[in-house]
């Protein structure tokens, strides 16, 4: 594993994503759902909304890093607000 050059922050990052995937899989099995159409005009399931959240968060954090000099934690806060919005309205 040494060649993969693991660090704690990246390990935590992947653990969070992996556990999100596991949680959403369990949710999908335990509580089946029907897709709904939100503000984007497309049909989404919980998994779709998770994908939109993660991808959007990556871009939000990059934009925060590129355009501001403030602490990166605020980028994460914005991403969480974005996540809540996606799960509520998309």
């Amino acid at each position, binding site marked *: 594993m*040494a*060649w*993969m*050059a*693991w*660090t704690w*922050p*990246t390990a935590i*990052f*992947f653990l969070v994503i992996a556990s999100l995937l596991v949680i959403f899989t369990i949710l999908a099995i335990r509580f089946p759902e029907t897709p709904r159409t939100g503000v984007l*005009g*497309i*049909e989404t399931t919980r998994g779709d909304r998770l*994908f939109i959240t993660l*991808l959007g968060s*990556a*871009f939000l954090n*990059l934009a925060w*890093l*590129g355009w501001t000099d403030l602490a*990166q934690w605020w980028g994460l806060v914005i991403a969480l607000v974005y996540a809540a919005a996606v799960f509520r309205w998309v």
Partner: protein
Amino acid sequence: MNKTTNQKAWFLVLPVLVLVAFSAVIPLMTVVNYSVQDTFGNNQFFWAGLEWFEEMLASQRMWDALGRQLMFSGIILAIEVPLGIFVALNMPKGGFWASFCLVMMSLPLLIPWNVVGTIWQIFGRVDIGLLGYVLDRIGVNYNYTQDTVAAWITIVVMDVWHWTSLVALLAYAGLKSIPDAFYQAAKIDQASRWKVFRYIELPKMMGVLMIAVLLRFMDSFMIYTEPFVVTGGGPGNATTLLSIDLVKMALGQFDLGPAAAFSIMYFLVILLISWVFYTVMTNLDNRGS
């Protein structure tokens, strides 16, 4: 009818998952790990945090390469998709000549990327290449090693030569699936050629066309070998597309950290655009059915 619900078939996907894990997921995780560290080789890594991402976001070089890449993908899509549809519309509908055209058009698709690059590299040379020599003799100032416009025209024409037939073949398959009844109805209504195309052929081809656009976009956005063999990214940096720049950074300069940060952003852009294409595609399908 009683349908048994059984999800065990998912286990059949396991071998693919294992393969993808080793060929894609683990390398991608490694790239993420590299992107937050610095190394001078010898497998020693030093924590660098988000420094490389910051550096890459501020780097004019990356934005320029991204701009060139978007321009390249935009140009080839704007040429290949209409041209492919045009070719498909004008192909024989059956018989010997239909098979002949299909085989002829598949030929460029079978040639390996580096060979395509070499063919065009020689074809365009002013001293020995047929194209370069002829252009030079009739007085056109064409030299893809020194002139930016000539270099761009060469790589665009090369890509069009290589991949238009893919679009044409897909569009042809879409056209073949339209039942004759549609055309007969249009004839009874005295629909013009344009209206037949607009209201019958185009909607019926939409599905395959979206696949063609998606394939051509992803492929052109990741293109490396052909322009690298023909122009090597030159003259200057004029045809240094994203992947060429990335390889220069990672393997040429051995800047693994910045190159990893660069790759991740490259990956995110591809993921975003592919997702948009995919979503549009599946929504069109849903609306159609």
